[in-house]
């Protein structure tokens, strides 16, 4: 622990966590719901980061796992009253299984890079159309979770309750995801992944089991993402295949991490803050001048500027600026 505190990053991080933990005391429901958006964006970005940032496998279809988790948690709750935490296990299992299918097909058949990204889009779109026609989950007219009666106490087990409860749940999930990502990177598998990411053939030549390690990255990333989907389902209370599986969700999901810094630990958080702040500001502005699409255009410009000016993302640059010690994470 003492080594941890010598690291300025750790101090900074614990301070941030403390502020976030105390936030509900000062913030109203509106600000809390924005913070929930930030944390969910950061959580999903970290999940995507495991696959793309650590292991270098480009997925453009992560909405697939969000949707599978959301529908597993939501449909089981609606039909059988299954608690979301049990539903989440089902959702994570299904997502990991689907990830295993995509990974096996992609890696065994040597579908790489952009082609692999296209394969992941194809699976997500395929599933979207499938859910659009599947009556048990409400097909294209949507699935609705019954809201909790007014003024009922928070029920953490059934995830029915106030904004504050949802805030603490997603804060916990994001903190856990951060710790988990850090633990993965520090371990042998983290080094294997980085070796594969930098040069797959060289990693293979060194005796790293490339297929197995890439598969593990896909399974972990898919399962983590689908847990975020369960949260989304219970927070929003409505699910439409059109929106939950859409390519736009896949894009927005990775946008924060790209802006913050792919492959870094803190990048997804920084990116989520920047992106959500920008998004809220522009939604407000767009509503003010009555034009749709302003937010998406700004996201596009933001992405382009990052790629042109700081292709490594904001965090590595900010880290240098703040003189934080570390090795680029």
């Amino acid at each position, binding site marked *: 622990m003492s080594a941890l505190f010598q690291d300025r990053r750790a101090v900074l991080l614990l301070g941030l966590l403390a502020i976030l933990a105390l936030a509900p005391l000062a913030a109203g429901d509106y600000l809390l719901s924005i913070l929930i958006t930030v944390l969910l964006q950061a959580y999903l970005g970290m999940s995507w980061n495991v696959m*793309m940032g650590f292991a270098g496998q*480009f997925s453009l279809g992560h909405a697939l796992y969000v949707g599978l988790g959301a529908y597993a948690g939501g449909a089981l709750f609606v039909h059988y009253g299954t608690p979301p935490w049990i539903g989440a296990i089902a959702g994570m299992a299904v997502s990991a299984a689907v990830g295993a299918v995509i990974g096996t*097909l992609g890696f065994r*058949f*040597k*579908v*790489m*890079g*952009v*082609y692999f*990204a*296209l*394969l992941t*889009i*194809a*699976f997500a*779109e*395929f599933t979207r*159309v*499938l859910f*659009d*026609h599947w009556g048990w989950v409400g097909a294209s007219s949507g699935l609705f979770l019954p809201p909790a009666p007014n003024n009922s106490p928070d029920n953490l087990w059934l995830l029915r309750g106030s904004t504050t409860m949802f805030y603490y749940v997603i804060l916990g999930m994001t903190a856990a995801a951060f710790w988990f990502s850090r633990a993965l990177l520090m371990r042998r598998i983290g080094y294997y992944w980085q070796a594969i990411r930098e040069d797959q053939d060289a990693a293979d030549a060194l005796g790293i089991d490339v297929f197995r390690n890439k598969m593990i990255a896909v399974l972990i990333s898919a399962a983590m993402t689908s847990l975020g989907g369960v949260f989304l389902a219970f927070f929003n209370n409505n699910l439409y295949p059109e929106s939950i599986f859409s*390519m*736009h969700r896949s*894009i927005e999901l990775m946008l924060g991490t*790209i802006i913050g810094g792919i492959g870094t630990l803190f990048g997804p958080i920084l990116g989520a803050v920047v992106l959500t702040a920008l998004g809220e500001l522009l939604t407000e502005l767009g509503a003010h001048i009555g*034009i*749709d*699409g*302003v937010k*998406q*255009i700004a*996201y*596009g*410009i933001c*992405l*382009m500027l990052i*790629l*042109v000016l700081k*292709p490594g993302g904001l965090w590595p640059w900010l880290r240098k600026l703040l003189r934080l010690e570390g090795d680029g994470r």
Partner: protein
Amino acid sequence: MDATFFMNVISAGLLTGLVYGLMALGLSVIFGVMRVVNFAHGDMMVVAMYAAFLLFTKLGIEPVPALPLVAGGLFVVGYLLQRFLINHFLEVTEHIQFLLLLSVAMIITNVVLMVFGPDARNIQLDASFESYSLGGLVLDKVRVIAAFTAGGVALLLWAFFRYTTTGTAIRACADNPVGARVVGLDVEKLYAITFGIGTACVGAAGCLLLLLVDVHPHLSSDYTLLGFIIVILGGLGSLGGALLGGILVGLSEALSGVLIAPSLKSMFSFGLLILVLLLRPQGILGKKP
């Protein structure tokens, strides 16, 4: 459902497929020469469709005569895009390049959404209600016109690459960029021309497709994905392959729309993409550097 009915469906699918093929040609040319995956392809297609829509409603120019104008306009857009943006991104990692074009796509789609709003638009020509009948076969007049024009443009493109000096120079860049530079070719300029040609194909295809479908801003990602499906099906970088892929997708859409459900037709296209990515990886990866 008798045989004539099926023949009608199949011929309609074939004709639409040729227009799809022309759209995919643009993607294929750009990939074949620069190895750039144009993720803003469908967005440019939608821009072309709106341009043709405006030319018709404001100036009364029908889509087929408007084709050279729209294609020319998109050529300029593509040329400038490659010259000033993408040329700086030729040496970076694949996914950065991909994301760059994604950002271009996001900007284009939403500008279109801002300008035209989310509603679907279409045009009515005198020819829209006419048809040719050949024996028992009934063919929509506009569909026949669109398909033949698409075929004509594809033929022009082939002739350009085969017989002109610029076309030969571009093929030289595709084969060996370093060699092309050594013999004194202006590779950056040729790349910009190539991107322009690719987007011009999309422009032409957009004009023709407006004869067949309604246009709305959210078509863009559908057409981007459709373009990828077609070129991967036919073989990236191959001109004949793009046309063949377009026809196959046109057929599969028409048949699955009739036999199963119209809303499921895209699922078949994606199913097709997954199958092809897995079963013909040598055809796809064999062309990678």
